[in-house]
C-alpha cells in the first residue's frame, strides 16, 4: 500500500515528464532534441503502465516488481539514446553521429553481458537480481559517458546554455541513481527505503529539463570554464 505522499510524488513526476514535452513543443525544440522528448514520452507511458499493474496486482506482487524493474531497464536504455543525441549535438561539427551511435550500442551490449556474467555466478533469484545489477551498471556507465560528454563540453568550449544545462541535469540524474543502486547492493537492508526514494530522484530529470526548455532561451550563451568546480 502506498501513502498519499507517494501518490503525490508519482503524479508530480508524471506531470513533470509530460511538461518537458509540452515545453519543448512550445519553445520549438522538440525536433532538435527528439531523442530526449521520445524518452520523456516513454516515461509517461511507463508511469501509466506501472500504475495499471499496481492497481491490478498490488504493490507487493511479483507482477509489479517484474514490471517495475523491466521497464526501468528499458527506460535506462532509452536514456542512453537520449545521451547519444546530446553527444551528437556537442560533436555536430565533426559529423561523428554514426560512430557515437555504434559505440553506444556496443557499450550497452557489453554492460548487459557483464551484468549477466556477475548474476550467473552468484544468484538464485535470477530475474530481479539481474535487473538490479543491470540497472546499477547501466546507470554507472551512463554516468561515466555523461562525465566524458561534460569533459568534451569544456574541451570544445561549448557555450549553448540550454545544451549545457541538459547535460548537467542528466549527470545529476545518473549519479543519484547510480549511487542509490550501488548502496542497495552494498547494504541490502536499506533496499526498501532507497526504492521509495526512486520516484523523488526520478523527478530531478524532468524538472530540470522542463526548466531548461522553458526558461533558457535556445540562443543563450555561457562560458563553460566559469562552471568548473576547480577554477580554470
Amino acid at each position, binding site marked *: 500500500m502506498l501513502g498519499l505522499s507517494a501518490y503525490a510524488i508519482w503524479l508530480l513526476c508524471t506531470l513533470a515528464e509530460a511538461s518537458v514535452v509540452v515545453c519543448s513543443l512550445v519553445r520549438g525544440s522538440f525536433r532538435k532534441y527528439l531523442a530526449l522528448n521520445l524518452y520523456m514520452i516513454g516515461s509517461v507511458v511507463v508511469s501509466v503502465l506501472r500504475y495499471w499493474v499496481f492497481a491490478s496486482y498490488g504493490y507487493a506482487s511479483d507482477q509489479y516488481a517484474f514490471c517495475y524493474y523491466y521497464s526501468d531497464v528499458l527506460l535506462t536504455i532509452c536514456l542512453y539514446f537520449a545521451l547519444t543525441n546530446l553527444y551528437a549535438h556537442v560533436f555536430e561539427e565533426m559529423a561523428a553521429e554514426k560512430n557515437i551511435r555504434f559505440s553506444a550500442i556496443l557499450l550497452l551490449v557489453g554492460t548487459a553481458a557483464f551484468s549477466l556474467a*556477475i548474476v550467473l555466478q552468484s544468484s538464485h533469484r535470477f530475474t530481479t537480481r539481474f535487473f538490479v545489477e543491470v540497472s*546499477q*551498471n547501466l546507470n*554507472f556507465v551512463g*554516468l561515466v559517458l*555523461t*562525465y566524458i560528454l*561534460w569533459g568534451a563540453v569544456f574541451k570544445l568550449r561549448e557555450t549553448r*546554455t540550454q545544451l*549545457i*544545462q541538459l547535460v*548537467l*541535469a542528466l*549527470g*545529476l540524474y*545518473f*549519479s*543519484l541513481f*547510480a*549511487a542509490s*543502486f*550501488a*548502496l542497495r*547492493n*552494498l547494504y541490502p537492508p536499506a533496499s526498501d527505503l532507497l526504492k521509495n526514494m526512486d520516484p523523488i530522484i526520478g523527478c530531478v530529470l524532468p*524538472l*530540470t529539463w522542463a*526548466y531548461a526548455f*522553458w*526558461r*533558457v532561451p535556445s540562443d*543563450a550563451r*555561457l*562560458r563553460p570554464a*566559469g*562552471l*568548473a*568546480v576547480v*577554477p580554470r
Partner: protein
Amino acid sequence: MIAGIIFACSVVFLLQFFVSYCRSLIAASSKQVLSPEVRDVTGISASASGEDFQRVMQLLHLCPETPEDRSRIQAVGAYFGLLNFMRSTVARVVPSLRAWTDAERAHCAYFAAVALERRIAFSRDLLAQQMDA
C-alpha cells in the same frame, strides 16, 4: 567491491555535477544589474557577500512566489548549504578553498537579490492587473 567503487565514484561525480549545475543557474543572474531600490532594500551596495544571503532570502519569502523560480531558488539554497558546510569543515584546513567558498556564497547572495527583483516586478504586475480589473 564493484558496488563500493561505483558508490564512491557516483558521489564524487554527483558533487561535481551539482556544483556546476548551480553555477550555471547563478551565471545568468550575475550579468543583471540590480535596481537602486533593490540595492537599498537588501543593503547590497557595490558587491554582495555571503552574509547577505539569509537576509535576502527572508525578503524573498515575503514576496508572492512565482512558480518558475521556486525550484531554482531551492537548488541554489541547497548549494549555499553545501558551501557553508565546506566553509566550516574542509576550508578551515585549506585557505584557498575558503576564498573560493566566500566568492561562491557572494554569487548565491547576488542570485537571490536578482530573484527578489523579479518577484517585486511580478508583484507589481499582479497589482496593476488587479487595479485595471
